[in-house]
C-alpha cells in the first residue's frame, strides 16, 4: 500500500470571498486616478503630477524603511495602502508646491501617523490628513496661498477664476478684483465680514448656476485632487460597483454638510446654501475617500452614520466660525479620535437580544 495521504488541518471556514486587502487598496488607487487626470488637465503636469509622484514614492519608501527597521515583512509596503496615503496627501496640497513639501508631509504621514502606531490597521488617525495638518502648522503660507487659476488644455488662453465664479459674472460684484486669487470657500468666508451690500452680491454670485457648474467640473482654485466633483464621483461609482465602498459614511457626511451648510452655513439661520456647501472645498474628496478610510472610522453601521453626521457638523462649524475657510480635514481628524467610543456605544443588536445591557 502507498504512503497514506495527509491533508492540511485548519479551522473552518475553508473557503473565502475573492475580496482582499490588496484588491481593496488598488481599487481605491484606481478610483483616485480620474481626479489626477483632471488635476493634470487643469493645472499642468509639473504643478500637479510631480507633487503626486513625489508623495507616493516617499510614502512607499518610508513604509519600506519602517518595516525594515522594525524587522517586519517588507512586502507589506506594496499592499497598496501606502500608495493610497501618498495619493491622498498630495491631493490635499495646493498645485505647484515645492517638491520637498510632499516629501515632508508624506514621510510624516507614514512614519509618525501610521507606522509609529503599529502600521496598517493600528493607526487611530487618518495618516494623510495628519500629514496635511502637520504641513499646515509648519508651512502655513505655502499651504494656503498661491492658488492657481485652472485652465483647460484645449483652450490654454481661457483662464477661470479661482473662486469658481464665471468671469462674465464678475462685473456684478463691486470691487471684484479684491477677491481674485481666493478659493470659493475663502471668498464665502470673507463675504461674511464685507460691507453688507457687497457681501450679498458676492454670495449671490457664488450661489449661481454658472458657479455650481464650474465647481462641479473643477474650474476653480483648490488643492490638486479636490477640485472636480465630477471626476471624484466617477471614482466613487467605480468603488461602489466593485463592492469596496459602502455608502453609509459618505452619504451621512455629505448629507450632514448640506444640512448644516443650510442651517448655520449662511449669514443667518437657515440662510446657507446646501449645494454650494457640498460642491466647494474638499468635502467630495473627503466624503468619498477620507471619511471612508476604514482603519480610522467605526465598524458598526450606526457608528458610521454618526461619524459622518458629526464630521459634517464640525466641517460647517469650522467653515463658518473657525480660523480656516475649510473644515473638512480637521473635522475628520477630530472624529477619528471618537471612533473607539462610537464603536462601543453603537454595538449592533444581537439576534434575540431584548434591549441593551448597560
Amino acid at each position, binding site marked *: 500500500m502507498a504512503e*497514506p*495521504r*495527509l*491533508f*492540511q*488541518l*485548519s*479551522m*473552518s*471556514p*475553508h*473557503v*473565502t*470571498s475573492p*475580496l*482582499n*486587502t490588496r*484588491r*481593496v487598496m488598488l481599487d481605491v488607487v484606481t478610483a483616485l486616478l480620474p481626479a489626477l487626470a483632471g488635476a493634470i488637465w487643469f493645472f499642468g503636469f509639473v504643478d500637479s503630477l510631480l507633487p503626486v509622484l513625489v508623495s507616493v514614492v516617499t510614502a512607499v519608501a518610508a513604509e519600506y524603511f519602517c518595516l525594515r527597521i522594525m524587522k517586519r515583512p517588507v512586502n507589506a509596503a506594496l*499592499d497598496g*495602502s501606502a500608495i493610497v496615503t501618498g495619493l491622498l496627501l498630495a491631493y490635499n496640497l495646493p498645485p505647484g508646491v515645492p517638491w520637498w513639501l510632499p516629501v515632508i508631509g508624506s514621510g510624516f504621514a507614514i512614519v509618525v501617523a501610521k507606522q509609529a502606531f503599529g*502600521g*496598517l*490597521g*493600528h493607526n487611530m488617525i487618518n495618516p494623510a490628513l495628519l500629514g496635511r495638518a502637520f504641513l499646515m502648522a509648519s508651512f502655513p503660507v505655502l499651504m494656503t496661498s498661491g492658488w492657481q487659476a485652472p485652465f483647460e488644455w484645449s483652450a490654454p488662453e481661457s483662464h477661470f477664476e479661482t473662486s469658481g465664479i464665471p468671469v462674465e459674472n464678475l462685473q456684478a460684484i463691486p470691487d471684484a478684483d479684491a477677491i481674485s486669487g481666493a478659493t470659493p470657500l475663502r471668498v464665502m468666508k470673507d463675504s461674511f465680514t464685507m460691507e453688507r451690500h457687497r457681501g450679498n452680491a458676492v454670495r449671490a454670485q457664488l450661489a449661481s448656476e454658472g458657479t455650481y457648474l464650474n465647481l462641479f467640473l473643477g474650474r476653480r482654485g483648490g488643492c490638486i485632487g479636490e477640485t472636480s466633483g465630477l471626476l471624484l464621483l466617477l471614482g466613487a461609482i467605480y468603488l461602489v460597483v466593485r463592492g469596496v465602498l*459602502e455608502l453609509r459614511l459618505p452619504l451621512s457626511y455629505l448629507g450632514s454638510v448640506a444640512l448644516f451648510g443650510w442651517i448655520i452655513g449662511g449669514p443667518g439661520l437657515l440662510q446657507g446654501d446646501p449645494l454650494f456647501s457640498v460642491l466647494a472645498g474638499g468635502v467630495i474628496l473627503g466624503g468619498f475617500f477620507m471619511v471612508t478610510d*476604514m*482603519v*480610522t*472610522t*467605526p*465598524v*458598526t*453601521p450606526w457608528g*458610521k452614520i454618526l461619524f459622518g453626521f458629526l464630521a459634517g457638523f464640525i466641517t460647517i462649524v469650522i467653515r463658518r466660525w473657525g480660523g480656516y475657510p475649510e473644515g473638512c480635514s480637521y473635522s475628520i481628524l477630530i472624529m477619528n479620535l471618537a471612533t473607539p467610543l462610537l*464603536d462601543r456605544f453603537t*454595538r*449592533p*443588536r*444581537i*439576534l*434575540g*437580544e*431584548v434591549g441593551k445591557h448597560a
Partner: protein
Amino acid sequence: MGKRRTFSGGAHPDERKELAEHSAVRKLPAPKVIRVALCQHLGAPSTPLVAKGDRVTRGQEIGAQNGFISLPTHSPVGGTVLALEDAALPHRRSGPTIVIETSSEEGGAVFEPWPEYSSRSPQEVIERIRAAGVCGMGGASFPTHVKLSPPRDKKVDTLILNGAECEPYLTSDARLMVERTADVIDGMRILAHALGVGRVFAGVEANKPEAAAALEGAGAEVITLKVKYPQGAEKQLIKAVTGREVPVGGLPMDVGVVVQNVGTAAAAAEAVRDGMPCMRRIVTVSGGGIKAPGNFDACVGTSFADLVEAAGGYSGEVVRLLSGGPMMGIAQFTDAVPVTKGTSGIVALTSREARSLSEGPCIRCGKCVDACPMGLAPCLISEAAEHSGWKSADEAGALSCMACGTCTFVCPSSRFLVHYIKRAQEAIRASKRSREA
C-alpha cells in the same frame, strides 16, 4: 411566491452545487471492513455490547445508550467483530470504535414496523426514535429523542423541517428530498405527531426548486428561502420562517419551535414506519479535488477513502479533506476515518479553492459586522480575544457566536475571526465555571 424569506446579515459563498446536484444517489455496498464509531451522536458514547470475535447481525444493537443525552449504536452489516479500538474520527480527535468484517447486508428491520404510526402514542414514537439511534443528520448529531422531549413548561407549537442546505458543495439533502420524498414527508408527519404540533413548515433554499416542488406536491407547506449562508442555521431559519427570535443563550423551544433536518425526518420514518435502526445515510462526495462528484447512500462505518474511490478518486492536488461543507466542515488529516450518522458530505478542496492560511492585520472595514447573522461585531470580539480581553469579548456577545464562519469568509484580510472568538468562548466559559465552583 412573493418575497423570499430570510434573516439579516449573511454572505454568498460560491455555491458549487452544480458539481453533484444532478447526480442521483448511488447505493454503495458495504465495504469488506467497516469501522462503526460508538460516539456518532452528541453526548456520552454508547457502551460496547460485543467483544472481539462475536458474530453480529445487521441491525443488532452493538452499543448501549449511556444516559439521557446518548444513543444506542447498531451494526449496519452482518459479520464478525474484528476489534474494539480507539481510532481517529471525523468529528473529534479520536473515540471508541468497533471494527466489523462484513459478511452480509440482509435484514436489519429489528423493530416491529408501524405503518399506522398515528395509532401509537407520541411517547411510543419518541421511544422508538431513541431505540433506533436517530440523531440530527444535518451535522450536529444531537440525539433526536431529546429534542422531541421538551420540558413541560416549554409549549412547542411549530415544527420546521430544515431543507435549506446552505453549505456550498453539499447536495445530499437536496437529493434526499427529490428521490425519497415519501420518506421525508412520512418522517415530517411522524415528528409532528411526536411533538403534538399542527403548524409544520419545510424551509428550502430557492436554489433547490426541484426539491421544493417535490415536497409541495407531497403535501408539505414549503417556505422558499433566499439563497444565503447560513440560512440553515437554526436561529436564522426560525427567524426567516416564523419571524420569531430565539433569545440570546436560549433554545428554539423557548419560542415554541423545534427544527429537524430533512435527513432526520427520513431516518425517523425508517425507524417508526419500517422498524429499521439508523445505520445508513446519504453522503455527498464533492469538491475540485474529486474526479466524479456524486451522492452516495452508504452505511455508517464506511471509510472516507472508500467513498472517495467510489467517486472516481482524487484529482489534482488536494490540500484539504473535509467532513461536511467548506463553511463549517471539519478538516481531516487522513481519509481513514469512518462515515458517521452526521457525515453530510466529504469535500476535497484543491489549493485554488481552499482559503489560504496566512492572515493580515484587521483594516476595520466592518464587513464582518455587516455579515454576522447573529448581529455581532466579530472584528471587535477577536481584537479583544487577541489581547486576552475575555471580559470585553464577553460583553461584546462572544458567547452568541455559533462559529458559522461568515465573518472569516468575508474578511479581506483573511483573519481567523472564528478561531479567536472560539478561543474567547472557551476562556469565558472556563472563568464562569471557576466562578461558580
